[in-house]
């Protein structure tokens, strides 16, 4: 048998062995951010092994929901795979945008018990707390804090702080302490530059201020409703504790944030922190690999801590996403192949190495995980205290109402915290009435 014939036979055998699967051009849609670049790198392995080609459609965060929800609502075929925000899961399931994955998981031996429980509830299940899966947890994320360790360690600042507050300048254990630290740095001269306390989420247009303020509200006692009676909002959303939480956030904004930070979200906070304007920043964990690699603030100059406790508990706003197969895609089989490949422990381990936050227990519970990166332990601690915003099909209405009410009080200074939350109860009640849930 000559070499050419041998090659032909070998190729035919290979095609036969793979079930003559057609090579597809798959498109994965996600937000445009650092982890997306890591996913491109990771997906090269899938392309090699499967023969499919991966294309990527990444949209900047402020426009991500608009662009992608338009795509889904119009039944568009642009995306075969969607790494959609956690709050989309209700709409994705009820409006038929996502393919239900239970049968696929069962057939492929993928079990949700292998993933961090909070990410399964947050990214995959609808209705919540039922075994109906519409996504595979893809990227664990949570709001946490980054601080200038190098500034905290300066003896003169430590001495001054101790004299003023009677304790060491260190990672804050409570929201009250966090405010003290932020106020301590506000307007301070460090190396000839005026710096400020904390960069917090204040953005008005999309979801920014809501993703920020909830970190105070949860810990003061805000609840999305009566735990025993869903959609009963009055007295829970606008409880005295919730009002105190909202007042705390406004006070933090008024007294400890850079001037002009009235419309800041992830990108602005990163910029302020990396350029040395602030001592602390609130941000999702996805930024931490970038902070560590930054020449100005990385390499040991920064530290990380979970959202500190408030008077009524310690919680943090869940971020992150699951990966779903879009029901309008003509290439669902190839898209499911991608999910099967992505769920493998070795791929998840590689995902973490590249800067993606794996939600697989095998990765995060590995004995070496907590020390694998300076922020790994903080990530684990934060993922243990997460709470998420509504994931109802009407989440966008609920979100925009909160954006408006909270921004109007915290940033514009209109009315009182009680009025803002009472107004929010009214808005949300109207939405749930429209939805037929009340």
């Amino acid at each position, binding site marked *: 048998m000559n070499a050419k014939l041998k090659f032909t036979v070998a190729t035919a055998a290979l095609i036969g062995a793979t079930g003559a699967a057609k090579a597809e051009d798959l498109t994965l849609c996600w937000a445009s951010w650092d982890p997306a670049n890591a996913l491109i790198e990771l997906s090269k392995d899938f392309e090699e092994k499967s023969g499919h080609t991966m294309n990527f459609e990444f949209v900047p965060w402020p426009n991500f929901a608009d662009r992608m929800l338009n795509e889904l609502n119009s039944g568009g075929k642009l995306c075969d795979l969607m790494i959609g925000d956690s709050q989309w899961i209700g709409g994705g399931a009820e409006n038929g945008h996502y393919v239900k994955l239970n049968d696929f998981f069962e057939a492929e031996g993928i079990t949700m018990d292998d993933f961090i429980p909070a990410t399964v509830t947050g990214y995959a299940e609808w209705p919540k707390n039922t075994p109906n899966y519409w996504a595979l947890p893809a990227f664990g994320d949570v709001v946490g804090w980054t601080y200038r360790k190098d500034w905290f360690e300066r003896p003169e600042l430590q001495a001054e702080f101790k004299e003023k507050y009677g304790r060491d300048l260190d990672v804050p254990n409570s929201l009250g302490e966090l405010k003290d630290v932020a106020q301590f740095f506000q307007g301070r001269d460090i190396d000839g530059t005026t710096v400020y306390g904390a960069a917090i989420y204040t953005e008005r247009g*999309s979801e920014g201020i809501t993703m920020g303020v909830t970190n105070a509200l949860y810990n003061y006692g805000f609840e999305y409703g009566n735990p025993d009676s869903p959609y009963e909002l009055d007295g829970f959303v606008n409880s005295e504790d919730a009002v105190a939480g909202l007042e705390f956030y406004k006070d933090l904004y008024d007294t400890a944030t850079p001037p*002009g*930070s009235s*419309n800041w979200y992830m990108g602005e906070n990163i910029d302020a922190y990396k350029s040395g304007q602030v001592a602390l920043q609130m941000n999702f964990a996805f930024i931490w690999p970038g902070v560590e690699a930054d020449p100005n603030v990385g390499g040991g100059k920064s530290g990380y801590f979970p959202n500190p406790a408030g008077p009524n508990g310690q919680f943090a706003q869940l971020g992150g996403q699951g990966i779903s197969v879009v029901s309008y895609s003509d290439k669902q089989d190839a898209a499911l192949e991608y999910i099967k490949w992505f769920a493998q422990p070795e791929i998840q381990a590689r995902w973490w190495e590249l800067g993606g936050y794996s939600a697989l227990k095998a990765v995060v519970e590995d004995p070496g995980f907590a020390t694998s990166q300076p922020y790994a332990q903080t990530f684990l601690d934060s993922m243990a205290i997460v709470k998420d915003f509504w994931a109802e099909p009407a989440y966008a209405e609920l979100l925009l109402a909160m954006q*408006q009410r909270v921004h*109007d*009080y915290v940033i*514009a200074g209109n009315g009182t915290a009680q009025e803002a939350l009472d107004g929010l109860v009214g808005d949300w009640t109207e939405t749930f009435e*429209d939805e037929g849930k009340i």
Partner: protein
Amino acid sequence: MIHTPMDKIAEATPEPMARKVRGLSDRAIAWIFVAPSIFLLLAVNIFPLIWTIRLSFTNYRVNRPNRDIDFVGLRNYERILTDSDTWMTMQATAHFLIWTIVLQVLIGFALAYLLNMKFKGNDMWTTIIVFPMMLSPAVVGNFWTFLYQPQIGLFNYVVTFFTGGDPSSFSMIGDVQLAPWAIVIVDTWMWTPFVMLICLAGLRSIPDSIYEAAECDRASKWRQFWTITIPMALPFLMLAVLFRGIENFKMFDLVVQLTGGGPGNTTTLTSIDLKREAFEKWRTGYSSAYAVILFVTVFGLASIYVKALNKVKER
């Protein structure tokens, strides 16, 4: 005999077709020519308008294809018109509309008046002045957010250079009192050149002979300005106001980039509010009613204005 291209086409037309065409009246031929345009107009403008009006009486949501669509009568209209937030956005829009038009007309006309005088470098200055309107509104919005930054922005430094004080003591886009003016300033910076160009065209259309006659009658420059320049440039000025009024009623991109509608709802203009209702909250029926209300408002105001404009032109 001269053979025009039309004669050649007529000769080349097969006899049966020519007979058919010859049998059509002028009116029928005219309809054949305008039919495609009318069809397009109906498909692209009129049908969506009628469809929007129909949707405005329902609870339809485009993101809920599986949900029943109920007829809700005037409920959407009632909710919009009794919602205090709607009136706040209307107020914000009115503030933005009135002040941008006033400032752009005053500054634009003044610039046009200066540029209409013959001086060295006239063309170069015209080009420099029109530069802002060549930029994308998204770009303008983006770089003005930097200019307005209290710590690094040039705007605060310039203001405090003249007034004294700390540049970071005020925030143009974060302050409830200042934010409405922040968007007015940026829009004025960007679109004054447009008004200036229209005014310049108007000023250059006034024949020199009229001024020469006025000078023979010993009319002062002041009197010439009020009795010749302003009346003859008025139709152009009114046209500029109409264009800017319609454009600014639809203002979206610039303001979204600058303030996102904040702080609170301070700079949420109607177009931003409508977009949120339609494409973020997906309340299609409600937003259709909102769109109809805005359409009637703009159409009504524009109609009255165009009538006034025609009267001025007839004078």
